[in-house]
Protein backbone atom coordinates (compact mmCIF):
# COMPACT_ATOMS: atom_id res chain seq x y z
CA UNK A 1 0.00 0.00 0.00
CA UNK A 2 1.35 3.38 -0.97
CA UNK A 3 0.98 6.74 0.73
CA UNK A 4 0.73 9.24 -2.10
CA UNK A 5 2.38 12.61 -1.57
CA UNK A 6 3.61 15.67 -3.43
CA UNK A 7 6.95 17.32 -2.72
CA UNK A 8 8.20 20.51 -4.35
CA UNK A 9 11.98 21.00 -4.41
CA UNK A 10 12.35 24.77 -4.02
CA UNK A 11 15.99 24.56 -5.23
CA UNK A 12 14.70 23.40 -8.62
CA UNK A 13 11.40 25.24 -9.11
CA UNK A 14 11.83 27.99 -11.70
CA UNK A 15 8.29 29.39 -11.43
CA UNK A 16 7.45 28.38 -15.01
CA UNK A 17 3.85 27.56 -14.04
CA UNK A 18 3.96 24.49 -16.31
CA UNK A 19 2.35 22.44 -13.53
CA UNK A 20 -0.53 24.92 -13.25
CA UNK A 21 -1.12 24.87 -16.99
CA UNK A 22 -0.84 21.10 -17.25
CA UNK A 23 -3.39 20.63 -14.47
CA UNK A 24 -5.89 23.03 -15.97
CA UNK A 25 -5.56 21.44 -19.39
CA UNK A 26 -5.71 17.82 -18.25
CA UNK A 27 -8.79 18.26 -16.09
CA UNK A 28 -10.44 20.96 -18.15
CA UNK A 29 -10.63 23.10 -15.04
CA UNK A 30 -12.95 26.07 -15.61
CA UNK A 31 -11.89 29.68 -15.78
CA UNK A 32 -11.17 31.18 -12.37
CA UNK A 33 -10.14 27.95 -10.68
CA UNK A 34 -6.58 26.84 -10.09
CA UNK A 35 -6.21 23.50 -8.42
CA UNK A 36 -2.47 24.19 -8.30
CA UNK A 37 -0.55 27.43 -8.08
CA UNK A 38 3.07 28.53 -7.80
CA UNK A 39 3.85 30.64 -4.73
CA UNK A 40 6.98 32.80 -4.72
CA UNK A 41 8.55 33.91 -1.46
CA UNK A 42 10.90 36.91 -1.22
CA UNK A 43 10.10 37.80 -4.81
CA UNK A 44 12.94 39.79 -6.40
CA UNK A 45 15.09 39.60 -3.28
CA UNK A 46 18.05 37.42 -2.35
CA UNK A 47 16.83 34.04 -1.21
CA UNK A 48 13.82 34.01 -3.54
CA UNK A 49 12.09 30.64 -3.55
CA UNK A 50 9.15 29.31 -5.53
CA UNK A 51 6.95 26.41 -4.50
CA UNK A 52 4.20 24.69 -6.41
CA UNK A 53 1.27 24.27 -4.04
CA UNK A 54 -1.97 22.30 -4.28
CA UNK A 55 -3.85 19.94 -2.00
CA UNK A 56 -1.17 18.12 0.01
CA UNK A 57 -3.43 15.14 0.69
CA UNK A 58 -2.78 15.44 4.42
CA UNK A 59 -2.72 12.23 6.44
CA UNK A 60 -4.89 13.89 9.08
CA UNK A 61 -6.71 16.29 6.80
CA UNK A 62 -8.34 19.32 8.48
CA UNK A 63 -10.85 19.63 5.62
CA UNK A 64 -12.15 16.17 6.48
CA UNK A 65 -12.37 17.09 10.15
CA UNK A 66 -14.45 20.23 9.64
CA UNK A 67 -16.76 19.13 6.82
CA UNK A 68 -20.31 19.29 8.24
CA UNK A 69 -21.68 16.77 5.70
CA UNK A 70 -18.66 14.41 5.68
CA UNK A 71 -18.19 14.59 1.95
CA UNK A 72 -14.46 13.76 2.19
CA UNK A 73 -12.88 10.33 2.17
CA UNK A 74 -9.35 9.00 1.95
CA UNK A 75 -8.41 6.22 -0.43
CA UNK A 76 -6.30 3.28 0.64
CA UNK A 77 -3.37 5.07 -1.01
CA UNK A 78 -3.76 8.19 1.12
CA UNK A 79 -5.38 10.42 -1.50
CA UNK A 80 -7.92 12.82 0.01
CA UNK A 81 -10.97 13.03 -2.26
CA UNK A 82 -14.45 14.43 -1.92
CA UNK A 83 -17.91 13.70 -3.23
CA UNK A 84 -19.46 16.64 -5.07
CA UNK A 85 -22.93 15.12 -4.71
CA UNK A 86 -22.65 15.53 -0.94
CA UNK A 87 -20.78 18.86 -0.86
CA UNK A 88 -22.98 21.81 0.11
CA UNK A 89 -20.39 24.47 -0.75
CA UNK A 90 -20.28 25.88 2.79
CA UNK A 91 -16.58 26.81 2.60
CA UNK A 92 -15.52 25.35 5.98
CA UNK A 93 -12.80 23.31 4.28
CA UNK A 94 -11.48 26.50 2.68
CA UNK A 95 -11.08 28.09 6.10
CA UNK A 96 -9.49 24.96 7.56
CA UNK A 97 -7.01 24.21 4.78
CA UNK A 98 -3.56 25.72 5.47
CA UNK A 99 -2.69 25.55 1.76
CA UNK A 100 -5.78 27.26 0.31
CA UNK A 101 -6.49 24.19 -1.78
CA UNK A 102 -10.31 24.18 -1.92
CA UNK A 103 -11.71 26.25 -4.77
CA UNK A 104 -15.26 27.33 -5.59
CA UNK A 105 -16.38 27.59 -9.18
CA UNK A 106 -19.09 30.20 -9.14
CA UNK A 107 -20.42 33.24 -7.41
CA UNK A 108 -24.17 32.84 -7.80
CA UNK A 109 -27.11 34.73 -6.39
CA UNK A 110 -27.29 34.97 -2.59
CA UNK A 111 -23.55 34.27 -2.28
CA UNK A 112 -23.74 30.67 -3.54
CA UNK A 113 -20.28 29.27 -4.14
CA UNK A 114 -21.09 26.05 -5.93
CA UNK A 115 -19.52 22.67 -5.17
CA UNK A 116 -15.97 22.70 -3.88
CA UNK A 117 -13.22 21.70 -6.30
CA UNK A 118 -9.65 20.73 -5.49
CA UNK A 119 -6.67 18.67 -6.60
CA UNK A 120 -7.57 14.99 -6.78
CA UNK A 121 -3.97 13.74 -7.19
CA UNK A 122 -5.30 12.87 -10.66
CA UNK A 123 -7.42 10.16 -9.03
CA UNK A 124 -10.91 11.29 -10.06
CA UNK A 125 -13.77 10.78 -7.67
CA UNK A 126 -16.25 8.18 -6.41
CA UNK A 127 -17.88 7.72 -9.82
CA UNK A 128 -16.85 4.74 -11.97
CA UNK A 129 -13.26 5.04 -13.25
CA UNK A 130 -13.00 6.81 -16.64
CA UNK A 131 -16.75 7.47 -16.74
CA UNK A 132 -18.20 10.62 -18.25
CA UNK A 133 -19.59 11.64 -14.84
CA UNK A 134 -16.15 11.34 -13.24
CA UNK A 135 -14.56 13.40 -16.01
CA UNK A 136 -17.21 16.11 -15.74
CA UNK A 137 -17.08 16.42 -11.97
CA UNK A 138 -13.49 15.69 -11.03
CA UNK A 139 -11.33 15.49 -14.15
CA UNK A 140 -9.20 12.63 -15.38
CA UNK A 141 -8.25 9.58 -13.38
CA UNK A 142 -4.61 9.07 -14.30
CA UNK A 143 -3.79 6.94 -11.26
CA UNK A 144 -6.23 4.28 -12.47
CA UNK A 145 -4.35 4.34 -15.79
CA UNK A 146 -1.07 3.68 -13.99
CA UNK A 147 0.12 7.27 -14.38
CA UNK A 148 1.20 9.82 -11.80
CA UNK A 149 -0.29 13.34 -11.58
CA UNK A 150 0.47 15.28 -14.75
CA UNK A 151 1.81 18.34 -12.90
CA UNK A 152 4.69 16.24 -11.57
CA UNK A 153 5.25 14.27 -14.76
CA UNK A 154 5.32 17.48 -16.82
CA UNK A 155 7.71 19.35 -14.51
CA UNK A 156 10.70 20.16 -16.69
CA UNK A 157 13.17 20.54 -13.81
CA UNK A 158 11.68 17.68 -11.81
CA UNK A 159 11.11 20.10 -8.95
CA UNK A 160 7.67 18.70 -8.30
CA UNK A 161 7.73 15.07 -7.25
CA UNK A 162 4.69 12.86 -6.77
CA UNK A 163 4.17 9.27 -5.76
CA UNK A 164 4.60 6.98 -2.84
CA UNK A 165 6.05 9.03 0.03
CA UNK A 166 8.86 6.49 0.55
CA UNK A 167 10.01 6.85 -3.04
CA UNK A 168 9.61 10.63 -3.12
CA UNK A 169 11.61 11.09 0.08
CA UNK A 170 14.32 8.72 -1.21
CA UNK A 171 14.69 10.75 -4.42
CA UNK A 172 14.77 14.00 -2.46
CA UNK A 173 17.31 12.65 0.02
CA UNK A 174 19.59 11.65 -2.86
CA UNK A 175 19.41 15.18 -4.23
CA UNK A 176 20.23 16.80 -0.91
CA UNK A 177 23.23 14.46 -0.51
CA UNK A 178 24.41 15.22 -4.05
CA UNK A 179 24.12 18.97 -3.54
CA UNK A 180 26.06 18.84 -0.33
CA UNK A 181 23.83 21.30 1.44
CA UNK A 182 20.39 21.39 2.98
CA UNK A 183 17.08 21.41 1.30
CA UNK A 184 16.78 25.18 1.05
CA UNK A 185 13.15 24.75 1.94
CA UNK A 186 11.68 27.78 3.68
CA UNK A 187 11.09 27.03 7.33
CA UNK A 188 13.70 24.29 7.53
CA UNK A 189 15.86 26.19 10.01
CA UNK A 190 12.85 27.01 12.13
CA UNK A 191 11.60 23.45 12.14
CA UNK A 192 14.96 21.85 12.89
CA UNK A 193 16.66 24.67 14.79
CA UNK A 194 19.69 24.95 12.54
CA UNK A 195 20.64 26.65 9.31
CA UNK A 196 20.42 25.04 5.94
Amino acid sequence: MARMKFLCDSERCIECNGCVTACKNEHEVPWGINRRRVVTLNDGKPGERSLSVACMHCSDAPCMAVCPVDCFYQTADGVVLHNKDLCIGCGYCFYACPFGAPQYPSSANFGGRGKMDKCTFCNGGPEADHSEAELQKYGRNRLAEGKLPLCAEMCSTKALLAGDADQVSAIYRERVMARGFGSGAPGWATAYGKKG
Partner: protein
Amino acid sequence: MSAIRITCLAAALGLLAGCNADERAHVVKLDKGTYAGAADTQLSDATRAVLRERAQLQRFGADLHQALRPSEPPPATAVTVDGRMAGQNY
Protein backbone atom coordinates in the same frame (compact mmCIF):
# COMPACT_ATOMS: atom_id res chain seq x y z
CA MET B 1 -61.77 14.11 1.03
CA SER B 2 -62.11 17.83 0.90
CA ALA B 3 -61.03 19.92 -2.07
CA ILE B 4 -58.38 21.61 0.09
CA ARG B 5 -56.76 18.27 0.92
CA ILE B 6 -56.72 17.22 -2.71
CA THR B 7 -55.21 20.55 -3.71
CA CYS B 8 -52.52 20.26 -1.01
CA LEU B 9 -51.70 16.70 -2.07
CA ALA B 10 -51.43 17.71 -5.72
CA ALA B 11 -49.21 20.65 -4.80
CA ALA B 12 -46.93 18.39 -2.71
CA LEU B 13 -46.68 15.85 -5.53
CA GLY B 14 -45.94 18.66 -7.96
CA LEU B 15 -43.14 19.96 -5.73
CA LEU B 16 -41.62 16.49 -5.37
CA ALA B 17 -41.79 15.89 -9.11
CA GLY B 18 -40.06 19.20 -9.66
CA CYS B 19 -36.98 18.17 -7.65
CA ASN B 20 -33.76 18.06 -9.57
CA ALA B 21 -33.14 14.47 -10.66
CA ASP B 22 -29.47 14.83 -9.69
CA GLU B 23 -30.41 15.71 -6.14
CA ARG B 24 -32.86 12.89 -5.43
CA ALA B 25 -30.09 10.50 -4.43
CA HIS B 26 -28.66 12.87 -1.83
CA VAL B 27 -27.87 11.51 1.58
CA VAL B 28 -30.31 13.05 4.03
CA LYS B 29 -29.32 11.17 7.18
CA LEU B 30 -26.01 12.26 8.66
CA ASP B 31 -23.87 10.06 10.87
CA LYS B 32 -21.19 12.52 11.97
CA GLY B 33 -17.66 11.46 11.05
CA THR B 34 -18.76 8.79 8.59
CA TYR B 35 -18.57 9.21 4.84
CA ALA B 36 -21.92 8.07 3.49
CA GLY B 37 -21.41 8.67 -0.22
CA ALA B 38 -20.68 6.26 -3.04
CA ALA B 39 -17.63 4.03 -2.55
CA ASP B 40 -14.63 4.66 -4.78
CA THR B 41 -12.81 2.02 -6.81
CA GLN B 42 -9.49 1.11 -5.20
CA LEU B 43 -6.31 0.76 -7.22
CA SER B 44 -5.23 -2.77 -8.00
CA ASP B 45 -1.84 -4.12 -6.94
CA ALA B 46 -0.83 -4.24 -10.62
CA THR B 47 -1.60 -0.53 -11.00
CA ARG B 48 0.35 0.23 -7.84
CA ALA B 49 3.35 -1.63 -9.23
CA VAL B 50 3.15 0.41 -12.45
CA LEU B 51 2.90 3.62 -10.41
CA ARG B 52 6.00 2.65 -8.43
CA GLU B 53 7.94 2.14 -11.68
CA ARG B 54 6.65 5.45 -12.94
CA ALA B 55 7.70 7.25 -9.74
CA GLN B 56 11.24 5.93 -10.15
CA LEU B 57 11.47 7.77 -13.49
CA GLN B 58 11.37 11.06 -11.59
CA ARG B 59 14.85 10.34 -10.33
CA PHE B 60 16.28 10.94 -13.79
CA GLY B 61 15.11 14.29 -15.12
CA ALA B 62 16.80 14.13 -18.52
CA ASP B 63 15.66 10.62 -19.38
CA LEU B 64 12.09 11.02 -18.30
CA HIS B 65 10.63 12.35 -21.51
CA GLN B 66 12.40 9.68 -23.54
CA ALA B 67 11.05 7.07 -21.21
CA LEU B 68 7.54 8.41 -21.75
CA ARG B 69 7.67 8.46 -25.54
CA PRO B 70 4.25 7.47 -26.89
CA SER B 71 5.81 4.71 -28.99
CA GLU B 72 7.40 3.19 -25.93
CA PRO B 73 5.04 3.54 -22.99
CA PRO B 74 6.13 2.13 -19.65
CA PRO B 75 4.83 -1.38 -19.00
CA ALA B 76 1.19 -1.18 -18.06
CA THR B 77 0.21 -4.77 -17.60
CA ALA B 78 -3.34 -5.34 -16.44
CA VAL B 79 -4.05 -1.60 -16.61
CA THR B 80 -6.81 -0.59 -18.98
CA VAL B 81 -6.27 2.78 -20.58
CA ASP B 82 -9.58 4.30 -21.57
CA GLY B 83 -11.00 7.74 -21.99
CA ARG B 84 -7.93 9.40 -23.45
CA MET B 85 -8.20 12.12 -26.03
CA ALA B 86 -7.08 11.20 -29.53
CA GLY B 87 -3.46 12.06 -30.13
CA GLN B 88 -2.78 12.86 -26.49
CA ASN B 89 0.75 11.81 -25.67
CA TYR B 90 0.69 11.86 -21.88
